[in-house]
């Protein structure tokens, strides 16, 4: 404890296996065990103040790192939506192909980085944390069929259709063919079958 100030301490029960692991980590970092665990608890409280849980924040970090590594950029949403609205009436099919190709590329990137089943799960997590403003993302598995349902209360029809192309591109590269699909403003239901 710094400057000889002694704070009141409380004892908290923790699984002994976890204590062993934490001890190892603290030793490797050259940090006193007490300071290391205090830092972890402080970060958990910070997360709580952000109305998040730590597990979700660590998951999100992993998703963001993957997206940085795969060449994603941050752009103003308003500009993206403006451009889509401007181009879509005349070039909708071309845009869908661009989104489909981008999805195929990202699917290949995921397939190279992760195992096939992990890649699909990761992609679903990514959709939740993505730019598409999705309010609901669910994936159901029935034998060889995956049913993906995406809902957004704000996504315009053009963006919804482009999102569907992107998702189909990713899933194609992960070895899934589209079996059924339904798309309306802010809602996509797609069944994929493992090829």
């Amino acid at each position, binding site marked *: 404890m710094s400057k000889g100030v002694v*704070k*009141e*301490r*409380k*004892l*908290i*029960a*923790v*699984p*002994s296996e*976890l*204590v062993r*692991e*934490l001890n190892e980590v603290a030793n490797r*970092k050259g940090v006193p065990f*007490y300071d290391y*665990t205090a*830092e*972890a*608890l*402080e*970060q*958990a*409280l*910070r*997360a*709580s103040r*952000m109305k*998040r*849980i*730590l*597990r979700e*924040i*660590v998951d*999100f*970090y*992993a998703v963001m790192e993957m*997206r940085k590594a795969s*060449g994603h*950029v*941050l*752009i*103003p*949403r*308003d*500009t*993206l939506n*403006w*451009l889509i609205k*401007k*181009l879509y009436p005349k070039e909708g099919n071309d*845009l869908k192909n*661009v*989104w489909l190709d*981008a999805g195929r*590329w*990202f699917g290949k990137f995921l397939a190279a980085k992760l195992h096939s089943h992990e890649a699909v799960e990761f992609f679903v997590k990514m959709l939740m944390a*993505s*730019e598409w*403003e999705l309010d609901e993302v669910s994936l159901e598995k029935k034998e060889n069929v995956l049913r993906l349902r995406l809902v957004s209360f704000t996504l315009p029809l053009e963006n919804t259709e482009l999102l569907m192309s992107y998702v189909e591109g990713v899933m194609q590269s992960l070895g899934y063919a589209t079996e059924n699909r339904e798309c309306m403003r802010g809602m996509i239901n797609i069944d994929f079958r493992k090829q």
Partner: protein
Amino acid sequence: MVKRKMLAADEGLAEQMVRVAEERGQTLFSLVNEVLEQGVRAHDMGLTLKRVVDERGVVEAVREAGFVLAVKTLWFDVVDGAFKRGAKRSMLKKWRETGQWYGKFFVAKKPENSIEGFRDAVCNLMWGASEFDIEVKNGEGEVRCISADFPLSYTELFSAFLGGALEALGYRCTEKDVSKGVIRIRFKVEGEGE
């Protein structure tokens, strides 16, 4: 039954953890267990929990400012295509307006150091840029942006965005040099040296 050990924690921290556990309907044991597990997980990723939580804060701020993620090649293709097919003028106007909006956003959000706030936000956004900086001294300054993968069209648009933002932040561009992937803008406080 899981074997347990007792962990000493600062009393204030422990009390706050008890409160969070109650709010989440969890036992203190399971909450602390979960937190420490995430600490080990972050360590295995070569990170500290502080960095992970800091990064989340940055992303929240960026989202609050209306930014979204897009695949870079897709975005550059679409922008470049539209730019070359005759939408250049309206696109430059749109990017300039968007820059003005963000400039005003930072004037309202950080009135005492709005240009620094804008610079920090853009630095966080510029994952792909090898260099981005804004320097201001005695009412004059310079923006430098170097990003090898920006096509010329996007470089022009991004310079329009920066020009719009500087205007809203109270500056006037005095010199602009834009070539593929490289932007250099010199500026002065609006109304000075006229």
